[in-house]
């Protein structure tokens, strides 16, 4: 697991503390029942704080899974 992935896992575990590491890496709105619209905004703020970015909220539909968030962060050269 890359450092970027590990940091993103920690973000998900901060918002969804019940997730184990492997569950976090597979997590999405479909697999985590607590991942509602409020949790989404909380998660994005935690990600913003962790990576020092401002998320583009117009692309929020891409942020509904670990992999989507990871792709967005990689776009920002945060690998």
């Amino acid at each position, binding site marked *: 697991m890359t450092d970027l992935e590990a940091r993103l896992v920690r*973000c998900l575990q*901060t*918002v969804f*503390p019940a997730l184990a590491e492997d569950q976090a890496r597979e997590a999405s709105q479909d697999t985590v029942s607590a991942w509602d619209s*409020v949790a989404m*905004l*909380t998660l994005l*703020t*935690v990600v913003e*704080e962790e990576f020092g970015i401002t998320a583009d909220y117009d692309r929020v539909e891409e942020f509904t899974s670990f992999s989507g968030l990871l792709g967005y962060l990689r776009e920002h050269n945060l690998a």
Partner: protein
Amino acid sequence: MKLTEALRLLQAAPNAPLWRADLVCGFTPLHFATWLHAHLQQRLPARRVGLHTGLFGDWAGNLERAAAARPAAIVAVLEWEDIDPRLGPRQLGGWLSAQRVDIETSAAQRLAQFTVQLGQAAAQAPVTIALPTLPLPPAAHTTPLQMSVWEANLRALLAQFSAQWSQIPGVFLLSSQWVDELSPAATRFDPASCLQTGFPYAKPHAELLASALASLAVPPPPKKGIITDLDDTLWSGIAGEAGPDGVHWDLEHHAQPHGLYQQLLASLAESGVLVAVASKNEPEVVRQVFARPGMCLPAASVFPFQVHWNPKSQSVEAILKAWNIGADSVVFIDDSPMEAAEVAAAFPEIETIRFPTGDARAVWQLLHHLRARFGKSTISEEDRIRSASLRQAAPAVSTDPEAFLAGAEARLEFHFSPGLTDPRPLELINKTNQFNLNGRRLTEDDWRGYLRTPGHFAAVVGYSDKYGPLGKIAVLAGRAEAGELHLDSWVLSCRAFSRRIEHLTLAVLFERFGASAITFDAQATERNQPMRQLWTDLSLPFSPAARLERDAFAALCPALPHQKEIFD
């Protein structure tokens, strides 16, 4: 605090008794609720804070429901759109002149309604409230530079009603000035977030507001005493060199910051803060300076004066003894870093501050800092007379105890139905260290709950003698069970030591309840040695197993020359 930190702090909350708080707002609480929750949890590490939120857009209904739940605290955040939805960006109700007039009318009605509701809510739980922090919309015809009649009227309405709210017991208003100083007005509002999610705050503003409200809802205990230096601190100049008339604290002599400092100390003294002087000086010179007209801090507000050439730490030691309080409740101020360091070395618990002579801005900040350290929500009668009663108590120490007690004309009042809104009992329980049965601190919620429990009783004890009143000086709380009494809390102000009040209290309890024995939730703390001394006098172990039989107490009880009066 970052949101990440807030979430982790909440996840690490202890599995402890619940402390419920209700957040009343009209917006989607989102991160504000998380930050408020975390800041409350941070201030209550021995409790598990539960935060309840209400419905979107229903400020009045949320307040009503919060009050009905009788939480430990209600934290309310009011914004303009709660006063009239047309004042927020999510309603298109119109900003035409006729509509603006209607907004004014409905705002007056709404604020009047909130006034009634706040009174009712505060009877159930303390209410901490923030007034609108977001801007009014550009609804009036004037440029943003010019305050319109409409805006002025709305602000006047809010000022008028908030003045009423500030006078409701149990309602605590967050200072708008404080928020203005720390949160730039232009960056508080997040229109995009408000329109997309109903959450109107920029994150830094939300975090600051949450932190401030949590601090107001669960304030740290105020400091009790301030020890000040004189030369280049209370006044500008060295009195011993320039002479009593050669030191200054006014504009004419470019010494106004010292006058402001004096003013603040006088104000603190009036609110019950103990003020003492520790100065390396000639006593007569100091006496003459204090006798000068225009001195903003009267000598009568200071007790004691420690003016000599010995180390400052000796002065501090003598002052702490005279005050009978712990060093951790005291702030020491001196312009000399060396003196401050000497005191800090001897009393690490004391907060030592260097007086920033010659730096007006830093002095101004110091005044705010001191107000923050010593500020209190209400001033009790005990606060007003504290310094005078200490002065009176001083000669009693050297008098023969029997003769002093017999001639003191001591009179005690035992009030067995303390009012729920009287802050003094809780203040005593939470501030008293030395004569304290177990050091247990209670929240307002704990106290209210205790008093409401069937079988529980509490008493507040007032004291006066020929030297003057000491006010309410003791609180006890317990329960009567099967012909015996059990005391859960018992505190006595250090100002009332050595008067056998504790013996009389036990005698009154045996008499009033006809109890055969009293048991105590006695637990040693670092500082309750004076309480333990009573147990030694009564030949009892200081432990939860201690049991005082009525007959044994009668045999050991010394003479009690006090007059007493019982109130139910």
